[in-house]
């Protein structure tokens, strides 16, 4: 089942013309008990067909344990964005990035391709002081219009600091994880499983929470 119609394909192809470097969409799935795995795989393959610079790779989480471990993948479906050197820079989507999250997927691809603006100097300075591992979880629903904004910011922070890892978590697909973190409003951001806030806050707000972990 194709998710993109002709109009979307045309619009996105034009958009992806601006990609400076190659990006690989690495999809992790399981054969059984995963409702959206097939859809996610198909959708990523469709996205890859929109540009020569987007590549598609499919992995079974059980047979490719080494890859899953290297990218920190524990849930399926998961999509990891790899840069032109096949390096994972902490940009991950757990659950199909459809609905409104297609927008954060597109932004993520462009960011990993090096085609988005970097953060202003003041925020770069704050980021430089982050030297211990940081994990950012951004819980979303696919019907939430302002969730992609929070996902994009988390991914941007991950791209600019090697110690930061950022993942979108679709709260309905992974309801057990969402329940563990008492998610009932989205976007909900959880940092190192300890510090949290609700809403699409500013980059500075993200940084303030991140600094608490250092």
């Amino acid at each position, binding site marked *: *089942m194709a*998710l*993109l119609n002709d109009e*979307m394909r045309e*619009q*996105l192809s*034009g*958009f992806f013309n601006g990609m400076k470097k190659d990006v690989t969409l690495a999809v992790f799935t399981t054969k059984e008990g995963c409702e959206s795995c097939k*859809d996610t795989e198909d959708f990523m393959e469709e996205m890859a067909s929109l540009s020569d610079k987007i590549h598609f790779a499919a992995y079974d989480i059980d047979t490719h344990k080494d890859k899953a471990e290297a990218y920190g993948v524990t849930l399926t479906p998961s999509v990891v964005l790899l840069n032109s050197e096949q390096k994972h820079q902490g940009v991950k989507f757990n659950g*199909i990035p*459809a*609905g*409104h999250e*297609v*927008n954060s997927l*597109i932004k993520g691809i462009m960011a990993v391709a090096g085609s988005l603006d970097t953060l*202003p100097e*003041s*925020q770069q300075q704050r980021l430089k002081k982050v030297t211990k591992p940081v994990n950012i979880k951004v819980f979303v*629903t696919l*019907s*939430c*219009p*302002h*969730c*992609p*904004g929070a996902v994009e910011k988390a991914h941007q922070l991950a791209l600019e600091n090697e110690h930061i890892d950022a993942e979108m978590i679709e*709260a*309905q697909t992974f309801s057990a994880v*969402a329940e563990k973190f*008492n*998610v*009932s*409003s*989205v976007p*909900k951001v959880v940092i190192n499983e300890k510090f949290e806030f*609700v809403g*699409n806050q*500013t980059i*500075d707000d993200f940084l303030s929470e991140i600094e608490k972990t250092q």
Partner: protein
Amino acid sequence: MELNLNVTEETKVQLKKEVVYDSLIIGGGPAGLNAALYAKRKGLNVGIITERLGGQVMDTSVVENYLGYESLTGEELVNKFIKHVQKLEVPILKEAAVEKLSKKDGLHEVHLKNGDVYQTRTLVLATGSKPRKLGIPGEKEFSGKGVAYCAICDGPFFEGLDVVIAGGGNTAVESALDMAKIAARVDLVHRSEFRADQVLVDQLKKYDNIHIHLQTQMEEIIGEAMVTGINVLDKKTGDRRIMNTNGIFVEIGYLPNSDAFKDYVKVNDHKEIIVDAYGRTNVDGVFAAGDITTIPYKQIITSAGDGAKVALAVNDYLNTHAAVEAPQEVVAK
């Protein structure tokens, strides 16, 4: 499975710090976007600074009262607005929060939270409003733990559960209708009578699981890890009781986003910017449009219309004020 694609080609023109604009529009909702459209067509050098392109309309599930469109989502409508403005190559600075405004050498300066400063001869303040809070005990404590402000975002978490919708306007009734399809039981609680359109109120009767409680005041939100209920006062009988529920959607109206401007222009007790019939504030060259102003009845179509009107007033102002003239204080009528 569907896609809500919202990728607009980045406008090729960018907002520049070294340019003195004829007009800078703060806010990217219907008022700001339409002000930009009208100003640009008048030949003005105009730009938009916005924290959230599209504004609150983005969170509206269905719009059925915008002339010319029988029914579409808020996002679809606002995407049409954005595309229209982008065709005219208006620079739009996104995700940019304004810290404060100031005056310098007869110009107005817009200071962003990230430290950047932009200069302009006139300003259109159109940052709209944000959801109003109940202001009762337990609301802050349980925010994100059962207390929610966006039904289309957080509705899915309450599948098969009981929810309360607080409010009596169109947004509240629409949320009740949306949630009735997902939740087991929906209690619509409002402190006075309905303000919503009758066509919407009539639809409430179609659902057996919607229960209406008018003249009912919410006094406290209670729970443990998550919300378990609310204490309510029945204003007719004077009785107090606990209403059990898993979640509360607060849809009781809006508060203007005027905090960054209230030291620069006059606001009223509701924090709305005081404007005259032309959208002029008390400060020369500073205008305001849409939900942030004292204009009554906040609607998408009235905000858009207001943006158009104010852009024309800005154009008249620029035609009658020389570029070098220092702004003078005037009082809004």
